[in-house]
């Protein structure tokens, strides 16, 4: 089923927010591509620009506060998203690409019944009439495991629990069988059984409709099970990317190691401290000419503080931006102890 057809290409994406203190450069030159039917996971530090990247793909960031720099290119299905006009955008959003937002409470219209909110895109993109749309909405709610879906379609968002709202968001995004689905932390509020079911659902969608999925998540468990490729982001940049296996087993970047090490070990009885990075991420307002991770990196070298490393290809798919990849650099071993889990 998998074809190699690229459905989305993002090149040199730069996104800034103009704030009172200066320009917050939230995304700094992100490149990636997405093929049909593929799942690309974004993991990374909180605040590193994952959601911003996702929103910029849909051109949802509003000027004048937010600015997608003109040098950025977003090509979706052969069309340049940056150049789309209003009408084209409406047709593009929701139909070709849809998004599950991170904040389910604030992302749902508080004065509209959830059913209606789902129906809205159905009627818009799948030309359903009211009745059909409503039936479909109920079906969608059932699909995301909301009990009593017939009743729940008439609920308002505030009457639902956090997880239910999130599932409504999911249902809404899935409603139109988009070609690309951007899921921004879709299962944070869901318990594991439902999470598993939702992931099954997305997998099914992917297989049936050949949907490409961008999955933003912190749950390495989910990533491990679900993603084809993983990109590790930090401070607006991609530090490492590769297939799931490459990232989990052969990661080269100290930040990736830190991430993997932070997960509590299963069955670990001792209540010892979890591994955690020290310090805080860099201020995104500052110009960064160094490796963004340098200040928190155990293996920081002199060069790291002077120059941003180039991306080094390890394999076709596995690329790392780290001075440690430099031939002159000392060889270090991952401190992430996989066997310990």
């Amino acid at each position, binding site marked *: 089923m998998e074809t190699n057809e690229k459905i989305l290409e993002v090149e040199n994406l730069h996104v800034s927010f103009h704030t009172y203190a200066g320009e917050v450069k939230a995304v700094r030159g992100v490149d990636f591509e997405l093929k049909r039917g593929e799942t690309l996971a974004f993991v990374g530090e909180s605040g590193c620009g994952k959601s911003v990247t996702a929103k910029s793909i849909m051109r949802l960031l509003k000027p004048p506060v937010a600015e997608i720099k003109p040098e950025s290119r977003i090509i979706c299905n052969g069309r340049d998203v940056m150049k789309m006009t209003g009408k084209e955008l409406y047709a593009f959003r929701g139909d070709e690409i849809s998004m599950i937002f991170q904040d389910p409470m604030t992302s749902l219209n508080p004065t509209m019944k959830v059913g209606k909110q789902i129906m809205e895109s159905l009627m818009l993109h799948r030309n359903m009439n009211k009745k059909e749309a409503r039936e479909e909405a109920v079906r969608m709610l059932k699909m995301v495991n909301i009990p009593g879906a017939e009743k729940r379609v008439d609920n308002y968002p505030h009457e639902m629990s956090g997880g239910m709202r999130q599932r409504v968001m999911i249902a809404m995004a899935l409603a139109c069988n988009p070609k690309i689905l951007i899921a921004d932390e879709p299962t944070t509020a869901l318990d594991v059984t439902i999470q598993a079911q939702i992931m099954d659902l997305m997998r099914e969608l992917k297989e049936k409709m050949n949907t490409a999925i961008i999955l933003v998540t912190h749950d390495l468990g989910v990533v491990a099970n679900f993603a084809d490729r993983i990109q590790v982001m930090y401070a607006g940049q991609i530090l490492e990317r590769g297939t799931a296996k490459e990232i989990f087993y052969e990661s080269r970047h100290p930040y990736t190691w830190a991430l993997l090490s932070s997960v509590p070990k299963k069955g670990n009885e001792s209540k010892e401290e979890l591994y955690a990075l020290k310090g805080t991420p860099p201020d995104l307002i500052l110009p960064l000419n160094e490796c963004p991770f340098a200040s928190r990196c155990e*293996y920081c070298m002199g060069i790291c503080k002077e120059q941003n490393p180039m991306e080094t290809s390890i394999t076709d798919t596995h690329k790392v931006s780290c001075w440690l990849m430099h031939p002159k650099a000392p060889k270090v071993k991952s401190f992430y102890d996989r066997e310990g889990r």
Partner: protein
Amino acid sequence: MPDIPDEKFTIIGIDENAGEVLARKRISYWQDAWRRFRENKIALVAAVILIVMIFFIIFGPMISGYEFEEIDNTAINQGPSAKHWFGTDNLGRDLFARVWQAGRVSLIIGLVGAFVASIVGSIYGGIAAYFGGVVDDIMMRIVEILLSVPYLLIVILISVITDSKSLGTMLVALTLTGWCGIARIVRGQMLQLKSQEFVLAANALGVSPIRIILKHMIPNTMSLIIVAITFDIPGYIFSEAFLSYVGLGIQAPQTSWGALCAAAQQNFMFYPYQLLFPGIMIALTMLSFTLLGDGLRDALDPKQRK
């Protein structure tokens, strides 16, 4: 790629002292709003208009060379000219002097009235909305009663009881029910806000209701309150003229924009300038406050923050 010296590739590890680079001055919401407000060009224009007007209101009556109450029956109803820049009224009084003289009263009334009404109104509406239940029921019934008993009756009574023509009495009469409108609007909006999680969060912190109203609900209703204020200012300026109806308005020979407009009303077809100048002043006042209000609205909305 230029050659990089080897020593740059020795691991130095984490510099414990690094991190905290910046220590920007801490600002509060209001300070931030104020900062952005100052940067708003349109608001600046409005402020300049206002300052110019205030300048003339203070010095205008002296510039023209005429006393504002000086009757001259040789110069009745004259249009604007080099002698009388804004023309004269039906008693031959110099309108330039009168318009600025009138501004003193009108501006004070407009500003103080709107100020009092918005403060009382927001707090009252806030309390009613926040506590809800019986408190809301009783408070809103009081508003209903105040708004339903004919205002004219109330002010006539005030004028009879106090028998004083002070600015204070007038302001009391003006604001007596003037705050009810804002109270109702604010209450409506706050009912909506009240159920939001951040109010719940403040509640969980043990923040006192009055503080919740002042610090959370009112700032989030500000944009509405601002609109209400910009409407209230001309509203009060005109109401003052209305109050003279029951003998509470500003007393002759003092005058106000509202009074000037009312005076010019009957003959505005013949002497439109008599209406025009005070009218423009009221409009300019409202314009500058509308612009200021829009600027303030933007400044107070952090989402518009730049």
